[in-house]
């Protein structure tokens, strides 16, 4: 059975090196600070063996946007959830792209940019994935009226 780490389990893993990076500890996730988030992901991938990025997705929380990462370690058979809050408000949400850590984020981050309008800094090919280039707006935002 895959062990799903609780918020305090994740905190224990991160606290030795990234105590200041932790922004909030939830029941089953940890929210890390947007700045220098790649250091945390590199540490989780290389030192903690979280080699499979299960999924990247985003949620429109009305007051702000957040990006949600589901990580899995094939070797340890464990999974964890890391979240990043993209700024304090809805204006220009952006996070660092994790493509340099996990290639698997390539198409998923493009999809998030397309549908939710979150920019990923450092993505090799940041353009719309599903909708056409001249499309106005980002449909998964709560203020998008279809």
């Amino acid at each position, binding site marked *: 059975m895959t062990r799903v780490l609780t918020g305090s389990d994740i905190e224990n893993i991160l606290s030795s090196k990234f105590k200041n990076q932790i922004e909030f500890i939830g029941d089953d996730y940890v929210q890390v600070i947007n700045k220098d988030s790649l250091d945390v992901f590199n540490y989780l991938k290389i030192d903690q063996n979280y080699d499979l*990025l299960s999924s990247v997705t985003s949620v429109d929380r009305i007051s702000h946007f957040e990006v949600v990462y589901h990580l899995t370690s094939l070797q340890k058979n464990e999974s964890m959830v890391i979240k990043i809050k993209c700024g304090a408000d809805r204006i220009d949400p952006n996070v660092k792209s994790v493509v340099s850590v996990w*290639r698997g984020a390539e198409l998923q981050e493009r999809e998030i940019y397309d549908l939710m309008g979150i920019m990923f800094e450092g993505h090799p090919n940041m353009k719309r*994935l599903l909708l056409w280039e001249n499309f106005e707006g980002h449909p998964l935002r709560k203020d998008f009226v*279809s």
Partner: protein
Amino acid sequence: MSTELVTMNIGPIHPSTHGVFRMRVTFDGETIIDAEPIIGYLHRGSEKLAEERTYTQVVTLTDRMDYTASMTNNQAYILSVEKLSGITPSERGVWLRMIASELQRIAAHSVAIGFLINDLGAWHTPLLYLLREREKILELFEMMCGARITNSYLRPGGVFMDAPDEFWPSLNRFLDEMPNRLDDIENLLTDNEIILARTQNVAILDKNDAINASITGPMLRASGVDWDLRHRNPYDYYEKISFRRPLGTVGDNNDRYLVRLHEIRESLKIVEQCLDLIEPGPVQPEEVPFLVRPPKGESYVPIEAPKGELGFYLVSDGGISPFRCHVRAPSLINLTLLRDMVIGYKIADLFVTFGSIDVNMGEVDR
């Protein structure tokens, strides 16, 4: 000798692209030097539509994602809803949906193999053999729930109706016949010289590259990684079931074909074990309300769909419809490495490789 490069669009309407899929490919003679997948032609905004429907109504949207594997889509969604709202499913309901999802896996792999061989140029004969077997499964589904493709069979807590009495003898007949039919197909295809020449050592996918690119399912196992969520994270009652996990050694197109073929046999064994363990009882617990209203929270339950890890990330705000419903679509993510896999090969290998990845455009675009 330098030659002029040619850029060509393949698709969006093309018999070998399994739906509306476009590739912008740059050739040097017949050799591929760049390939860019362009998708979105079948985008229906399922994730946005889900935000305006009740939790039960969303089941019908999941059918239309990977339309060759509706039952497993239903299962992934329902498992996530059950975790979010704390519903314990009834035992018979779980066994029925396990039977349904394993039959669906056989049907989906049959389609994958059939169209892969079709892409190789063996027009229609092997494909029709496999579609004939799939047809029997669709008839079984029709008995179970009245629908063949867009089943919407599962509900939070189990399934919406029990299988009728005449379903069980038909299922047993199918289980008796199918291994012989598989032998026929294997005799016809597995050692076929042309198929071996076209698939062996083509588009080799390295283990570590595959894991790094989040590739899952038969594609990952063909590269030799023993990662099957039915075994590593047994959802439903998979921990009571024993089955082998076929693994590839090279990670080429032939391995991806073989892994799927062997998985069909294992799925047959799983259905047989489910038949031994299923017992009479209600198919859905009575206390499950018609309008599911989960508490605030979020859930993600990955399952092993025919194409790979499929999971629904649901966020609830306490209302009657999901606040956010994200689909982790294996078809989309398995396409990440398409470009790297085909560069340096010939144009004819492009379709074989694309066929062996086995994507479904309904799931890629959603």
